[in-house]
């Protein structure tokens, strides 16, 4: 019997927080994401200037204390414009994933739980949606409905429904084998109740992870579509449109191009880190893509 017992001090608050969020990088991701959401929500109060205020005296001015990201071809403050545009992009990204989840999660739940014919009937049409490359499908939908930020939101949501449905279906198929599901059924709980109260909460992990990944994609898709002129239309501000406009003054005033792009990159980075952290916590078996 050993007498020299090793004493370890209780884990520090930071270590505990790191473990809860799935790793140090994920914690950074969460904090960053929180900050970004806060900035997006508070844009009207944080922005130092009116994003539309034309100031001919400051055309293509470099970044300085009053204008953190410099000024564009019309003398408008790039920092304020990025804030407002970022708000739109983030709203579209979050909105599209929420909409996709509202439709896709129930479909995946029912398909995975019922199986058989119901499963095939529900998933087949969704698989057809996956037969087109995502951006192409979005572009085709915009060709039909017409450009705009809302169309981008709907188009992205449509693309994501089959992905989320598949992920939920996969984890539901695993969860429904669990003993506590059988126990609930044996107790006489109604099927619908079993689905909603027992299976669903335990299956959403991978979907949550997939959701953060999809949000990252959504921001990029929205930017790409707006860049092509198919997304948010003036006067709605958009990072993609800023990136397109910035090309005209690329060599004279690179900051007009650099900062909107950085805004996108940082957001996607935050979402990726959060997604990886969630993956480590909720889905070590890798059911999400």
């Amino acid at each position, binding site marked *: 019997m050993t007498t020299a017992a090793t004493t370890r001090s209780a884990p520090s608050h930071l270590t505990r927080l790191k473990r809860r969020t799935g790793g140090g990088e994920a914690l950074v991701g969460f904090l960053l994401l929180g900050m970004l959401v806060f900035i997006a929500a508070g844009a009207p109060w944080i922005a130092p200037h009116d994003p539309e205020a034309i100031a001919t005296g400051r055309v293509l001015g470099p970044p300085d204390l009053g204008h953190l990201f410099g000024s564009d071809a019309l003398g408008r403050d790039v920092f304020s414009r990025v804030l407002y545009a970022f708000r739109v992009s983030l709203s579209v990204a979050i909105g599209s994933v929420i909409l996709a989840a509202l439709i896709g999660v129930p479909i995946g739940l029912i398909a995975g739980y019922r199986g058989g014919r119901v499963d095939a009937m529900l998933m087949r049409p969704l698989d*057809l949606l996956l*037969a*087109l*490359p*995502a*951006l*192409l499908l979005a*572009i*085709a939908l*915009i*060709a*039909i*409905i*017409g*450009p705009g930020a809302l169309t981008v939101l709907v188009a992205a949501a449509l693309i994501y429904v089959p992905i989320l449905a598949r992920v939920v279906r996969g984890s539901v198929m695993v969860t429904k084998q669990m003993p506590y599901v059988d126990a609930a059924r044996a107790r006489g709980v109604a099927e619908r109740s079993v689905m909603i109260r027992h299976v669903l909460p335990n299956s959403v992990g991978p979907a949550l992870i997939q959701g953060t990944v999809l949000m*990252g994609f959504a921001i*990029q898709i929205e*930017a*790409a579509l707006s*860049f*092509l*002129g*198919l997304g948010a239309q003036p006067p709605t501000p958009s990072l993609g449109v800023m*990136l397109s406009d*910035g*090309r005209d003054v*690329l*060599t004279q005033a*690179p900051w007009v*191009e*650099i900062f*909107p*792009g950085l805004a*996108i*990159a*940082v957001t*996607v*980075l935050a979402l*990726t*880190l959060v997604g990886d952290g969630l993956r480590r916590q909720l889905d070590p078996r890798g059911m999400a*893509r």
Partner: protein
Amino acid sequence: MSPRLRYVVHRLLATVPILLAMSLFVFLMIRLVPGDPVRTMLGFRATDENVATIRTALGLDQPLLDQYLSWLGGLMRLDLGQDFISKVPLTELLSERLPVTLELTFLAMGLALAIGIPAGVIAATRSKRTGRASTAFVVASISIPDFWLGIMLVLLFAGTFRLLPPSGYTPFAEDPVANLRYMILPILTLAVAEAAYILRTTRGAMEETLGTPFITFLRARGISERRIVYQHALRSAAVPIVTVVGIQLGVLLGGAIVVESLFALPGVGRMIVTGINQRNYPVVQAGVLAVATLFILLNLVTDLLYGALDPRLAEADA
């Protein structure tokens, strides 16, 4: 019939309904436009007379099923109609523009594989610091919007250093060197993000294999480390790499559309975008049809490759 052959046939047959469903969607596109598509297309020239003439010319006054069947018949004869504005036959337009998109997509994927696989091997086998650096590279590449990277590359190579042209195109057949000079920035733009995914996949698969007892056994037997890495570990990465390539092909095609617009390359993607802005629906339809068909066929090829690489998958599916 051997299970492998059954898998091939199965997969080929499965492609037909997908192609049909896609063609139905593309066919319906013009008819789903809210309002009257012909009026939208004609714009200010939309007198009642013109609208009626165009509608008949496009066959839009026929019953829906007849329209679809005659459209399908046209597809079989490779007749897709004409560009609404320029009256150029669409098959001709596509035959000019498709090679550009194909060159861009294939060379980008090729470059991505050429960079990503060796980088993945290095990341899996060298020090921890290399591993961390490669993770940083992967995360950064995935986060940056690819067209923004393209613009930055233009700033660097065309603006500051004046090494390469910022836009333009020469067909390969005319002048291979000029063609590559124009294509290298677009290809690089797309290849970086793809290389990141391939790096991550290669590295992950190899790290997993290198940790197995089998590898320890090989080392104990004195097999050289080099052979272990390249012959055994890398082979295990083949299937995941093919998977990732298959998944990323769609992303790559989408990216190609944006990159074509960015670098003013005369490809199908740019044709679609211009078509939308001009309300030139026949062109948009033809372009979407072409890219979607390409995507479905490429997926078929990767699935068949899959079956060839790992016969277990072929058996499980059949």
